[in-house]
């Protein structure tokens, strides 16, 4: 059941990204370019998403099980530490350079873009590198 719901959620997320314009790097850069001709569209993507997700998370906080019967897991970390800030900084620079964040990059695998394919490979390499470093630092 959890797998079926996750598949549907992934499909919905992908269609939302395509409709919103988030999968078009030029549009993302247009939003991030405050000093140029600014396209505010992507602020409305965030607004539309939070308008639906906020009530759902308000309900989720009071539940311990999902509809699938699986445990409902919410993040427990709340410290604003160096990895959070430095990691987010690196992410923001990469986002500004290419106009891709992880979701739109994955959706763009289906959009016949060599740049998106290259970006996803590099992103996977970055994630694998993080997994290697963190495992090496904390041997099991």
């Amino acid at each position, binding site marked *: 059941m*959890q*797998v079926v*719901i*996750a598949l*549907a959620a*992934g*499909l*919905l*997320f*992908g269609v*939302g*990204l*395509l*409709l919103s*314009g988030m999968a078009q790097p*030029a549009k993302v850069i247009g939003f*991030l370019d405050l*000093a*140029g*001709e600014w396209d*505010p569209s992507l602020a*409305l993507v*965030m*607004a*539309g998403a*939070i308008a*639906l*997700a*906020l009530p*759902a998370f308000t309900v989720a906080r009071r539940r311990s*099980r999902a*509809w*699938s019967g*699986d445990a409902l*897991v919410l993040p427990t970390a*709340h410290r604003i530490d160096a*990895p*959070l800030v*430095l*990691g*987010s*900084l*690196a992410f*923001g620079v990469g986002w*500004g*350079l290419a106009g*891709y*964040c*992880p979701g739109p990059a994955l959706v*763009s695998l289906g*959009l016949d873009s060599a740049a*998106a394919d290259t*970006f996803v490979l590099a992103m*996977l*390499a*970055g*994630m*694998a590198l*993080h*997994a290697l470093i963190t495992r090496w630092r904390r041997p099991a």
Partner: protein
Amino acid sequence: MTIAWHAFTPWSALAGGALIGLSAALLILGAGRIAGISGILGGLFVPRSPDTRWRLAFLIGLIAAPVLWGLFLPLPAVPPVAGTEVIVLAGLLVGVGTRYGSGCTSGHGVCGLSRLSPRSLAATLVFMGAGFATVYAVRHLLSGA
């Protein structure tokens, strides 16, 4: 600042955002998990995780979305905004950065802000600020425009 009214697409942005929010709502209430793309993807590198199956299912749905879209509507043309070397560097930064930062636009930006998490608000402010600063540097300082 001038507004690019010709490029402004408020209704498709709002509607697309609403679908993303609906997806996050479905995943947390239906499957009990956070719709954070970098966490879902990066979590696949954690060996023997019980979460591998739903993560793969979500990613298959995400990657299949253009196929479904293409049955009804033309897919957008997506010209790249940078050369290959810059794209590779950007991908590495996004991959490493989202894992150390525990999230991206979806996990911190959509889900975290919807949970009213101060940690996610901090992350969102940092990556948005870095994005704005990077585009300013590339477009207005380095290009000489």
